[in-house]
């Protein structure tokens, strides 16, 4: 609580939300957990306050407490005043009266936020009728109006759709329509774009900003994404371990942070280097330089893995899904190839083809010079000794029934069956050193470790055979930025030391830009464009890559404002072009 700076105009009267010394304690199986303590903040009408922090910081708990939506095992203390009513201690009837009319909320997961069996129009109408005495027909009509307002095409038809018939972005628009149905004075948005692709994220943020401006609604934006903060917030409050460590205007906090934690957090955020963006600064050069200068010289000799004209079709007939269409790329020893794209672009499928987990419908895969389709099973298994794998989910990647030591030793058991137990142990200890984990973790189980530690265990398992190819599928996207930085750092160092080729799959353009020498941009099963990261991600050749890059919010409010204006202008130009 060292650097709490509060604006002078902190008077109770003018605020739509006022938290005063808010605390939340959860009763859990392992005893009480103080998730939030001493949080005081306020939101004025028409302003957006971003509440940022890493996982476990308590930011979402604060948001839920302000709605009175905490789960049954939580107890709140202090005051959370919404438009004159203290939410802490208010009864359910009182809260129902406020929720959806004075204060409303947008959630993170659009896939599950809507009742799957009720038509979306009806769900919106329900919120209207909760607070206004209008006929069902009037409410339905108003629901269509709201759908139009949140930018859903053909709202009359869409109102009759079930949630599963809409895309993730459209579902989030429906949730927003529900939230603004009764023109609330306060909108709480809890990671509203985290589950969405970057281009959809940009659209949703535009929508939220427009709606807030039109109605003068105050917004409490909960997010871990500094780019989103820079794009959207007027003021920022930084949370760490349940408490607020710093509050201030967005420029101050993001550009001139005063608290140590904020500084560390911001320095760990990967920044997208941008070529021009209205001439403003490139993002800060990091000490170890951007990925364009990453280890590994120009591709030389035989590639570790090469996909040639690979197509993958799942299913057949009318229901066939063309997951990959004629994709070709190669990863050479010592270099990192970034595979980027939005969800459904085929990047994960491509990585699984490279791993030999999915056989291509057409085209060929060459692993260390051998065509996988023409090698016998035994030889193929031997080839695979040269592959290391790190997948996205730190929980699902390790078998929870094994100790960390057994997990890491598994590749040794498969390919170096003749090793003695002691030799295995010493190899495991050595590789744990390499990924900078204490040797003692070998005896622990994965569930005793944090997400970042688990990913390092996965990395240790991938590297224990000193592979020639490392395939990393979103290895850090489930991690907090500070942890992500540490994990990427370890991969980078070991690559320098061991010289393996790395296929790095990620949805995060900024990470790929820093980490990969070359990049393949995937879109709808095709390789849209590929080339050196320094060229492709700074001066893209295709509109698609350009749009993708433009949609990434950078954690600098000044730069981001320029980028936003530019993006909107391009969009508007595109639209008139289409119409013309």
């Amino acid at each position, binding site marked *: 609580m060292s650097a709490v700076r509060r604006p002078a105009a902190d008077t109770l009267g003018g605020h739509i939300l006022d938290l005063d010394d808010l605390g939340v304690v*959860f009763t859990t*199986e*392992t005893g009480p*957990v103080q*998730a939030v303590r001493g949080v005081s903040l306020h939101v004025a009408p028409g302003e957006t306050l971003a509440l940022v922090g890493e*996982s*476990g*910081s*308590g*930011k*979402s*708990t604060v948001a839920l407490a302000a709605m009175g939506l905490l789960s049954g095992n939580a107890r709140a203390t202090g005051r959370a005043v919404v438009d004159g009513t203290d939410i802490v201690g208010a009864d359910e009837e009182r809260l129902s009266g406020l929720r959806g009319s004075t204060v409303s909320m947008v959630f*993170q*997961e659009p*896939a599950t936020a809507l009742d799957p069996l009720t038509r979306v129009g009806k769900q919106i109408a329900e919120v209207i009728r909760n607070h206004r005495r209008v006929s069902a027909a009037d409410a339905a009509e108003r629901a269509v109006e709201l759908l139009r307002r949140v930018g859903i095409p053909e709202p009359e038809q869409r109102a009759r759709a079930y949630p599963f018939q809409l895309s993730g972005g459209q579902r989030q628009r429906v949730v927003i329509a529900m939230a603004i149905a009764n023109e609330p004075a306060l909108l709480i948005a809890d*990671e509203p774009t*985290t*589950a969405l692709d970057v281009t959809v994220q940009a659209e949703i943020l535009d929508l939220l900003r427009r709606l807030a401006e039109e109605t003068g609604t105050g917004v409490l934006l909960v997010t*871990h994404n500094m780019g989103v903060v820079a794009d959207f917030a007027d003021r920022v409050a930084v949370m760490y371990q349940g408490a607020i460590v710093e509050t201030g205007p967005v420029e101050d906090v993001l550009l001139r942070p005063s608290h140590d934690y904020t500084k560390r957090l911001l320095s760990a955020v990967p920044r997208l280097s941008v070529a021009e963006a209205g001439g403003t600064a490139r993002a800060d050069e990091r000490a170890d330089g951007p990925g364009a200068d990453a280890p590994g010289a120009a591709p030389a000799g035989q590639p570790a893995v090469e996909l040639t004209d690979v197509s993958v079709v799942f299913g057949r007939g009318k229901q066939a899904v063309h997951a990959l269409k004629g994709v070709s790329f190669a990863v050479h020893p010592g270099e990192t190839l970034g595979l980027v794209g939005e*969800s459904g672009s085929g990047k994960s499928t491509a990585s*699984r083809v490279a*791993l*030999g*987990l999915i056989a291509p419908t057409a085209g060929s895969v060459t692993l260390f010079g051998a065509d996988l389709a023409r090698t016998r099973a035994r030889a*193929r*298994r*031997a*080839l*695979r*000794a040269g*592959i*290391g*794998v790190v*997948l*996205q*989910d*730190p929980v*699902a*990647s*390790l*078998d*929870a*029934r094994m100790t960390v030591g057994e*997990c890491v030793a*598994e590749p040794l058991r*498969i390919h170096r069956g003749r090793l003695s137990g002691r030799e295995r142990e010493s190899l495991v200890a050595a590789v744990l050193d390499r990924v900078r984990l204490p040797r003692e973790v070998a005896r622990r*189980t994965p*569930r*005793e*470790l*944090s997400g970042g*530690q688990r990913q390092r265990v*996965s990395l240790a*398992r991938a590297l224990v*055979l000193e592979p020639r190819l490392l395939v990393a599928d*979103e290895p850090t*996207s*489930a*991690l907090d930025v500070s942890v992500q930085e540490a994990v990427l750092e370890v991969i980078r160092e070991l690559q320098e030391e061991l010289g393996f080729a790395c296929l790095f799959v990620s*949805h995060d353009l900024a990470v790929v830009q820093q980490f990969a020498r070359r990049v393949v941009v995937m879109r709808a099963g095709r390789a849209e464009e590929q080339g050196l990261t320094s060229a492709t991600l700074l001066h893209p050749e295709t509109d698609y890559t350009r749009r993708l890059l433009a949609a990434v919010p950078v954690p600098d409010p000044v730069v981001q404002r320029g980028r936003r204006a530019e993006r909107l202008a391009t969009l508007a130009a595109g639209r008139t072009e289409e119409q013309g």
Partner: protein
Amino acid sequence: MSSSLASVDGLAAKPAQAASGTRLAVRRFLRNRLAVVGLGVVVFFVLFCFVGPLIYSTDQTHTLLQQVNQSPSGAHWLGTDAVGHDELGRLMYGGKVSLIVGLSAGVLATVIGTLWGAAAGYAGGWVDAVMMRVVDAGIAIPALFILLVVSAITTPDLTGLVLILGLISWLVPSRLVRAETLTLKNRDFVLTLRAIGGTHARAIIRHILPNSVSTIIVAATFQVADAILLVAYVSYLGLGVQPPSTDWGGMLSTGMTAAYSGYWWLIVPPGLAIILVVWAFNAIGDGLRDAFDVRGRA
């Protein structure tokens, strides 16, 4: 979704407080009071049937016509039956058969079901489709109907009975294990293993089966409950063990005619014993499911 983990807020498991899996499971189980009572009931009946006869010894082989259908008294705590056997002693004697047959048949069904389900789920594709149609066909013939047909053909001995019961009740566990295998084989740690050249055998033996253990144990517990119940039906259907041997179901069905004559002590004890034991295994299964956090039968 991809990034939902990044923002699990407030309650993210802190490494320090994560108790070991087993200890947590035990604690969760003990918190389920019905399950604990169920465990107590099972322990009681096992002692009752297997240790009880050592303390309370009775003649269960000879017909004692001088003491038939006596109501409960100091000499015969639960009275005597139509051929003069002490009812309490008979309850112990019959319980042995019920428990042994029920447990063996339940375990056998679970083993068959596990192998079948794991094979179908792991193989996938048309193998899975064919194997699951076989399960559908098996489920389509109600168990009691098959048992009655068998009873019309032959009267099996105890081993035969266990085999028959096992062979008709493996279908439900096979479905559960198949579902579990389907999810597990697509889990990241199995994919990783396959990618780096691990064999199918290793995937199944080292990863899929150990991770299905909790599902299998829970299924087995419910299976034993169902098997004990089925054993009770078997005597009613005329397939049961032959006199002078008996089981609770046999005692109950022979006592049914006597019930109209007011000999309540011939049906209430075996009836209660069946209900209590089956109830207990169901309660234990329920507790284990909570403890292991397994989904499945409600």
